[in-house]
């Protein structure tokens, strides 16, 4: 797989490809959710693509990440397969979690992706644990936790950062400040202007960067990764970014104006800006960009077609995967459901 090496033209192009993949994947997921095709909730990452791609671009392939409820971007940046992701969104067995997780819990531990997470602020303690394992085994890896401006208001995040700072654990905390914690603006949730100011409390480096600029994110995280890898402990990076969509698909967004959203889209769009930079440097033409867009759009459409056709899990699979060593209770209780000739009643 081509890596997102921002020092190289091919790597930069790959960065653009991943950002565009995130955009088109989530635009499609949004449509299919509104069609009623995808069940549950969908939290689009649209607008924040530079953060996931810049940050993960600065990692090595076997580094760990933890994600958030808005996790599609982190998964795609980490190199997860859009087809298996879409299958998971559709609740299909071929999905990353065999249909048990859905949009909010996509994980691929083998790829170092320790899970999207439905609990705001839950990722940083988990990444801190991964960093502890890395330090314990003296492995050449780091862990990176994404969390939102909402997440950093959670107490458990601060417990984790304090532990990592105290023990110099190899971890990077990236706070995606997308301006809103669900529907409440960041200034109504925090007293500090820059969320990286929190770093002072732990005597660790803290930086606030432009999260709409993939290169800026890449550079900040690359430096933080070096520091972590060298045994110098954690860094807290706040990437100021913007969530183009509501908190979830269907959010009526009464807390902000169309003008505000359009302003960010017009002036700061991370994909448009980075594409233009590559065009200006003669690394890409507009035609190549359109071609890239078509390729990705086709791949995403194919992922949807595949997900629609893929087999659903058998109902019995609901009773699997609870434990490594199963508890007999589960099959016992499940059998009671099916004791009357294997049917659960005609009304279901």
């Amino acid at each position, binding site marked *: 797989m081509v890596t997102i090496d921002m020092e190289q033209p091919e790597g930069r192009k790959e960065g653009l490809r991943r950002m565009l993949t995130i955009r088109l994947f989530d635009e499609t997921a949004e449509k299919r959710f509104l069609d009623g095709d995808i069940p549950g909730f969908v939290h689009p990452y649209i607008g924040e693509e530079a953060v996931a791609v810049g940050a993960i671009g600065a990692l090595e392939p076997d580094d760990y990440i933890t994600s958030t409820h808005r996790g599609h971007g982190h998964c795609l940046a980490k190199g997860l397969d859009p087809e298996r992701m879409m299958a998971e969104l559709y609740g299909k067995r071929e999905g*990353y979690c065999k249909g048990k*997780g859905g949009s909010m819990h996509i*994980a691929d531990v083998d790829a170092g992706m320790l899970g999207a997470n439905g609990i705001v602020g839950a990722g940083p*303690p*988990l990444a801190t644990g991964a960093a502890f394992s890395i330090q314990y085994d003296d492995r050449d890896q780091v862990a990176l936790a994404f969390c939102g401006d909402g997440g950093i208001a959670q107490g458990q995040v601060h417990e984790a950062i304090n*532990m990592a700072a105290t023990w110099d654990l190899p971890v990077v905390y990236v706070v995606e400040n997308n301006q809103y914690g669900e529907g409440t603006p960041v200034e109504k949730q925090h007293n500090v202007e820059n969320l990286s100011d929190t770093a002072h409390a732990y005597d660790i480096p803290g930086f606030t960067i432009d999260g709409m600029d993939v290169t800026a994110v890449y550079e900040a995280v690359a430096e933080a990764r070096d520091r972590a890898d060298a045994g110098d402990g954690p860094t807290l990076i706040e990437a100021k970014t913007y969530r183009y969509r509501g908190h979830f698909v269907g959010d009526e967004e009464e807390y902000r104006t169309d003008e505000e959203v359009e302003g960010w889209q017009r002036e700061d769009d991370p994909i448009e800006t980075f594409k233009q930079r590559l065009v200006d440097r003669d690394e890409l033409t507009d035609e190549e960009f359109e071609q890239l867009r078509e390729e990705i759009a086709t791949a995403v459409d194919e992922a949807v077609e595949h997900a629609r056709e893929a087999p659903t899990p058998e109902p019995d699979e609901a009773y699997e995967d609870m434990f*490594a*060593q199963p508890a*007999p209770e589960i099959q016992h209780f499940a059998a009671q459901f099916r004791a009357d000739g294997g049917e659960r009643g005609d009304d279901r």
Partner: protein
Amino acid sequence: MTAHAELETEATDRMTVREAINQALREELERDEDVFVMGEDVGVMGGVLGVTDGLLEEFGEKRIVDSPISEAGLAGLGTGAAATGTRPVIEIMFSDFLGVAAEQIINQMAKMRYMFGGKIEMPVTVRTTEGGGMGAASQHSGTIHTWIAHFPGLKAVAPGTPAAAKGLLKSSIRSNDPVFFFENKMIYEDSGEVPVDEEFTIPIGEASVERAGDDVTVVATQRLVGESLDVADDLEGDVDVEVIDLRSLYPLDTDTIVSSLEKTGRLVVADESPLSYGTHAEIATRAMEEGFFSLDAPVQRVGTPDTHIPFSPPLEEEVLPSGADVENAINRIV
């Protein structure tokens, strides 16, 4: 995995519950480099109740880690570490403090394996102390294991004897599932014979008949195992009492309970947790579901009568279930 299956020696040593737990930790730290112990004051202090005494000196700071007072952080770190190749043994000083750590326990540790379609291992052990009796008042005396046993995705064990403590802790540490190991602090000084073979383990999910009897079955946990055995001795000649140490709360060994019930026809459940919606109810229900036609009398429950544990000694003594309460329960149905 069965008890005693691969033992080279049947020899035993007499030791306390505290020593048995310490020995189990020492043996598993010795056996597996991935095992580390982390918690508040587990190192230099050797645990606030002395259970991890001497481990720091033997295994060093890398493997015996004094943490900040951060239960949520501890639970999260343990979960993240277990998911990425190590085998944490986390100590939460008092089980009441599990409330501080609850998010990581119930939404991460318990659910990750299932949510991810089984594609992750979660070999974490959480040791914690329970129980009243030392004047520690309401925030340091709770018996909350029902909470954990109730929550899908977690296993829970609560030994009543030194041998059970050692064998179950070793199994907990070796397990690839999250296991909560509940230590009643009033039995740390209780002594008993414990197998010395380092391969001695007790399977999670197996109860133990500690004393055979024909008239009534007492299913007991933790401190109430020993107290029920004393009651059985006192009643010998009048009532023939069978005493079972439940040992595992989840999974629960229904077969051992029902087999005993088929013999005795009468059941008392003795567990220090609060009575409503609890461990007692689960055991009574399973006895009813699987052994209804063996029951000759209503199942009796002995537990804490839905209060917190008060500070003042006469108040504390009032609410804590004891051997006398087990005896009364027996007398109600025989």
